[in-house]
């Protein structure tokens, strides 16, 4: 399962994508996590359209401004990993690592060790470029977030994927509610004071190249293309990542407005 490439260093298949829809990317990742026995690095340079991606148990009523989402017909995806809600669009760069549990020496297959390992990897990527840190579970420059993480850990493998905010559109902020729980380091900052754009630090291609170089310090990286994976795909596999239906979102909208009403009523008593 270790797929040793160079002596002692496991192999990793690198898949470079560009503008692939996030749902398709997540389906691929879920399939590779659950049915492959190799290590993978997937880099998707932008996704094709603005999409909201919620964590595995995200509740639309709590996380989204559903009326706006429905009005503007923004697709909402529930992914298979934990973590919070993001709005991804062509300004987002995705980097995913899918590994066997013994693939990285000294990294136990648990959330924190994997998170730390990823922090060390990106430390190499951003060396000399910005004041990079892993802060709680986010990647920050200084104290501003530019990368959010999520993971899924199975019996023998794990996935750690990141959405990097290379650029964002201010108006997209309006679709997401402020989450009930925020990281401590956020303090009382509004969204715009909390995040920053990676494009202020480096270009997309430099970022991607440096990430691949950093991955090479742990793995023997070889490029694979999407078609090669698709042809050997396990067609029986059914991913859990899915697009929420209009009905589900409308039901959530109804629930949200009912809650608001009862809250108002209780205050007025």
């Amino acid at each position, binding site marked *: 399962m270790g797929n040793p490439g160079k002596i002692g260093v496991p192999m990793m298949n690198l898949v470079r994508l560009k503008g692939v829809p996030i749902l398709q990317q997540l389906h691929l990742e879920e399939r590779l996590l659950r049915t492959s026995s190799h290590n993978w690095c997937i880099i998707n340079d932008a996704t094709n359209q603005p999409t909201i991606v919620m*964590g*595995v*148990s*995200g*509740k639309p009523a*709590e*996380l989204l401004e559903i009326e706006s989402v429905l009005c503007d017909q923004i697709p909402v995806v529930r992914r*298979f*990993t*934990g*973590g*919070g*809600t993001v709005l991804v669009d062509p300004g987002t760069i995705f980097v995913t690592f899918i590994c066997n*549990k013994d693939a990285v020496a000294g990294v*136990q*297959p*648990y*959330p*924190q*060790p*994997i*998170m730390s390992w990823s*922090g060390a990897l990106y430390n190499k990527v951003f060396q000399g470029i910005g004041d990079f*840190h*892993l*802060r*709680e*579970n986010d990647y920050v420059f200084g104290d501003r977030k530019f990368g*959010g*993480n*999520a*993971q*899924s*850990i*199975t*019996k023998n493998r794990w996935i750690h994927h990141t959405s990097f905010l290379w650029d964002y559109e201010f108006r997209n902020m309006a679709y997401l509610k402020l*989450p*009930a*729980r*925020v*990281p401590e380091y956020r303090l009382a900052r509004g969204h715009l004071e909390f995040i920053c754009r990676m494009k202020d630090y480096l270009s997309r291609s430099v970022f991607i190249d440096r990430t691949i170089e950093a991955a090479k310090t742990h793995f023997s990286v070889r490029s694979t293309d999407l078609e090669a994976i698709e042809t050997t795909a396990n067609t029986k596999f059914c991913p859990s990542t899915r697009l929420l239906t209009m009905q589900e979102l409308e039901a959530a909208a109804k629930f949200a407005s009912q809650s608001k009403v009862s809250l108002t009523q209780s205050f007025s008593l």
Partner: protein
Amino acid sequence: MMIGRRIFILQKRSFTSVRRFLCPYTSQAPNPNPSPAQGSASFRSAGSRSSILHFNVPYIAVNRSFFSSHAVADLPVGGIVDVPLAQTGEGIAECELLKWFVQEGDQIEEFQPICEVQSDKATIEITSRYKGKVAQILYVPGDIVKVGETLLKIVVEEAQVSTYVLENPTPTQEGLKNIKPCDSELTKNDICGVLSTPAVRNLAKQHGVDLNDVKGTGKDGRILKEDVLQYAFQKGSIKDPSASLTSASRRQFLGGEEDHPHPSGEVLGSYEDKTVPLRGFQRTMVKSMSMAAKVPHFHYVDEINCDALVELKSSFQNTNSDPDVKHTFLPTLIKSLSMALSKYPLMNSCFNEELLEVILKGSHNIGIAMATPSGLVVPNIKNVQSLSILEITKELSRLQLLALDNKLNPADICGGTLTLSNIGAIGGKFGSPLLNLPEVSIIAIGRIQKVPQFTDDGNIYPASIMTVNIGADHRVLDGATVARFCGEWKQFIEKPELLMLHMK
């Protein structure tokens, strides 16, 4: 960004620490059957024989290495095993149950995934440590499960020995074989339904004792080591049970009981080498001590005159009308420690190596090392700065009772900002404690001993002297700060009336 309902991270820690404790507590045989949430630990000290010990204060449960995606179970009684949610990451006290992969009545194999939970950013598959049949499922998807709560009950097959506490992920088959009984007599004892630990069963086997014949004096009729030795002595199998008992209890105090028996030569009568694979807390201790060893420590030692403290304690006891309250030295020491911390907040901080930042903790959450039947734990008293000595006494008592009963909450064990280690309970002059990372200081206090002191004009008088050893992270603290802090604390102990000056 997480939904409040789902996650509850109590406190993130950069490092794990498993430490040795000391507390004037327990003469009961430890029960190596801890529930993960309490993080009971059974583990050993580094140097058990010398009077100057290398101190590792035990501390558990909500620490980084203390986690497992194997649902660890209690000792099987009558074949039904309660399988709790094991620790899955530092500072994580609860997980949301996402889905079950099995249902009631299903036959499951060892290492088979049984459910998926979510904690913060990760979904995690939980696998079964046991082979057996699912008897009862206790949560439904969407429920929040606290670490340590029973997820499901499994009917296990006979002769499976529950020996692990929390441990590294995926123990190998080989590892399990090391622990499984390989003897029919032991198997008989396993399945006879008596409550006893594997170590006690092994001891019984060595002495040819059938556990069914032994009367247990432990909790719930549990058979303790002493019971087996006493029975064996009466049977004529061994000459002097007290010698064995002394060495046994000495080991208990020093390091707690573990899953594997560590018989002394006199009990075994054999001088062969014995390989003991390190498991559970001991294994974690290897890692955490290794990490602690990387921190440049320095130790500051001082002597404190406790005459006033002794008098104060007597005064409290004499005027005490509450039968539930028992006054000891610790609460006053803890309160005066907090007073000194207010003046030297750097001693009550956490160091983040990654960011090169020191977080001066607002609350004084003083951890007190304790011995429990399940091993060593370090619960902490929260917000000592806002508590009176009486309140500290009651809270200490509450924690001690819970610890003895193996019922400490994760909340009681997380969030400590400084650790106090009462080595005096065991003996020795003082210890040389290792830090409970990411705290930056730890205090080991020795026994209060009556020693002769000299007056200025050469007369001798008795004084109650306590030696303290403060271990400190030299990346954050310097000798001067620790020395001044200790001087401040010492003043409050030697002149407790000064506490009144700061009384609000």
